[in-house]
């Protein structure tokens, strides 16, 4: 998986591309530990699969950001990613925007 960091005045965007699994979580964790952003947007548009280690990494990132008074926002979820979030019920925990294939999402 590739991770591209994009810096904005008040948030950091991570563009992820590929399979987000236990082999890839260190680079995401490291990026977040280096920049300690208050707000993070994670662009999942090109993510093909997330495993439980990836989900745990995102949950931890959300906790860290919320402690800093910010949040993690998940963007552009493709269908498999969306279904994985629904089945694990993590869709209820995260702020999700621009979900692909969807008009009804909050």
């Amino acid at each position, binding site marked *: 998986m590739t991770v591209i960091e994009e810096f904005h005045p008040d948030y950091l965007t991570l563009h992820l591309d590929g*399979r987000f*699994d*236990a*082999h890839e979580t260190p680079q995401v964790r490291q990026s977040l530990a280096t920049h300690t952003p208050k707000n993070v947007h994670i662009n999942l548009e090109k993510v*093909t*699969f*997330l*495993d*439980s*280690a*990836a*989900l745990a990494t995102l949950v931890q990132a959300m906790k860290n950001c919320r402690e800093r008074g910010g949040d993690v926002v998940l963007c552009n979820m493709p*269908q*498999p990613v*969306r*279904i*994985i979030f*629904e*089945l*694990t019920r993590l869709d209820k925990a995260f702020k999700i925007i621009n979900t692909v*294939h*969807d008009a009804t999402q909050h």
Partner: protein
Amino acid sequence: MAYTNYQHWKTTPLGDTIVPHLSVIIPAYNEAERIVPSIGAIASYICDLGFDWELIIADDGSKDNTVALVEELGLANARVLRAAKNGGKGSAVKRGMLAARGRYRLFADADNSTPIEEVSKLLAKVDGSQAPRYDIAIGSRAAEGAQESNKSLLRRIFSGGLRMMVKYVLGINVRDTQCGFKLYTAEAAQRLHHAQTMMGFSFDLEVLYLAAKYGYTIAEVPVSWIDAPGSKVNPTKEAKRFIKDMAAIKRNDWRGAYAS
């Protein structure tokens, strides 16, 4: 459009009169941590293919909450086959394959090590859309064009002498016998898994041995494989077991245990 396929599959049971085009069987032993994302990926991809299909979770006496976790997902076309005690991967695959109703039957490891997208390559080998038509298509990490990241334990066990034995002792002409991603026609699945006697990881060897004996054709299809951490395999124990089981397969055959 695509998401509505999934929603329909999730909420509307196929019913007994419809023969699913595909059954996906996931053998599962203590997979509470890994299995739900894999189910999500599988459901998303297969629903998009647009045919009727069923998902079978063949529990293998899990001591964690794998069974409850999967049942709580409330998927209308998923079934959990619960086992009272741990019988080995072979026992789980056997129960799943024999309970399945699909025209084609895939088993796939719970960790999505072979991404589910690869099933399309396997299906093309057995469903008549590509000539020649095979009875069995098996994922292979050794075939030309395969991509493998993070070699799995069982693969490493098999890279040396054991693989030579498979070839020269059992006469199995397949380069990667152990890939947890194999597709059979209903007929082959019924016959082979009915005859299967090995319940551990060596069931793959036995089933491939029987496939050759019964005259089924096998396509070895290069697939990508990303091994997930969290394997519960003890390599030394399994290597010994493989050697013992290879001898047992020969013995069974001499004794006529596999006679058709």
